[in-house]
């Protein structure tokens, strides 16, 4: 199992292939239906830097963060999937979730040297891999707020990279 640390570089992405299992350690952002369209709106207005987070080289996990833990939500939900191209353009390197994406979304990942990774719903196992969690923005969304997690060896499978895909 290949192990990488955040931030994710262009070179790291070039060395990932579809079907590969990797682990990621470091900081990862979380966001889903409620918050990703808001983040995209900030990017479009060039205001995202005010959040104090770096999107270049980042990982975004499509999950809620609650006392119940974390686990992937369907990345093909409308509000999530349509945020992916803009986030990839802004430098997000790994989009982590579950479920098949549209060819046009996968194309946008390819263009931006970004990958789509998937993770099984293994909430009980993941709880021991989260070292720290904090809300970065949109706290009014509760469990759907933009969180920053510090994680150790988060496992995932590359589902789409370099124009190739599982689907």
């Amino acid at each position, binding site marked *: 199992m290949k192990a990488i640390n955040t931030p994710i570089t262009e070179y790291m992405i070039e060395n990932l292939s579809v079907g590969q299992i990797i682990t990621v350690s470091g900081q990862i952002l979380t966001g889903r239906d409620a918050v990703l369209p808001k983040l995209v709106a900030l990017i479009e207005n060039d205001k995202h830097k005010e959040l104090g987070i770096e999107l270049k080289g980042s990982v975004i996990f499509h999950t809620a963060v609650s006392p*119940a833990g974390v686990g992937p939500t369907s990345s093909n939900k409308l509000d999530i999937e349509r945020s992916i191209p803009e986030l990839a353009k802004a430098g997000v390197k790994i989009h982590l979730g579950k479920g098949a994406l549209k060819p046009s979304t996968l194309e946008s990942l390819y263009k931006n040297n970004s990958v789509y990774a998937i993770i099984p719903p293994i909430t009980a196992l993941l709880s021991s891999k989260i070292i720290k969690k904090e809300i970065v923005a949109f706290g009014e969304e509760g469990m759907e707020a933009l969180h920053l997690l510090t994680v150790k060896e988060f496992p995932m499978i590359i589902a789409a990279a370099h124009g190739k895909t599982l689907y």
Partner: protein
Amino acid sequence: MERDELISKKVSDTLIRAASNFREDQKKVYEKAIKEETNPSTKWVLESLLENSEVAQKNSSPLCDDTGIPHLFLEVGKNKKVSGEFLESIQQGIAEGLQKLPGRPMAIKGNDIERLEQSGGLDVDPGAVSPAPIIIKPVEENVIRLYILMQGGGPEIRGKTYRVFHQHKLEVIIDEIVKWTIDEVSKLGCTPCIPAIGIGRTHFEATSLMIEAMIRGNFNKQSDIEKEITNNINMSNIGPLGLKGNNTALATFVNVGPQRASGVRIVSLRLCCCVEPRVASVLL
């Protein structure tokens, strides 16, 4: 402990068990799939899911962060009585179980419009997630038995209740169910799935039968109809998490109810995800 408190405690414990345990037949079907799987990535997914269930069971913690909406199915024997107070104790136990688990705090606050638009904010109390309307069924056995199911959101997106013009052939109904499943299952993501199916005369009846299928179904005792649906779905080569292979569906749970003299059957299909059906029962 007062009787109503005792009922609430039993219900609370049962909810936690439903949300944190794989059933014995479910563990066995995973073990079999792991043994047969040759692709290392797919094997890793199946092994991780089984290991996750062991950790969740040990810690009485959620199998999945989407702890689900509680659904209740109550069996009532001939000489048993169910009062409003009794149902209230059950509701209280559900709230307590969600708080203790803890369930995901995902109840939406506000009026109709605020709840629809999710603009009224979220309730921070996991116990505020109200259960779906209870199903009550008379049974021969002289007991009151409550089943609690925890229904995640992904399978609700991929589920469907619709009519099938059966043309007096079982194969027509089976083919339609398999088509619906294959159209949706790769988008579900959390495969292997377990299609739960109710077939009845109305949408309400078919959905109730589907819920009952999740309770009565057994991974190790599959009917010919269930085996045929599973085999046909597995020919799709979608596999666990979309990684290809023969385990797109681990089993199928079918419940056929009374039927109408008509060319139409109402079929309710729910693509239970890889941690479902999350169900446990208790005698009250």
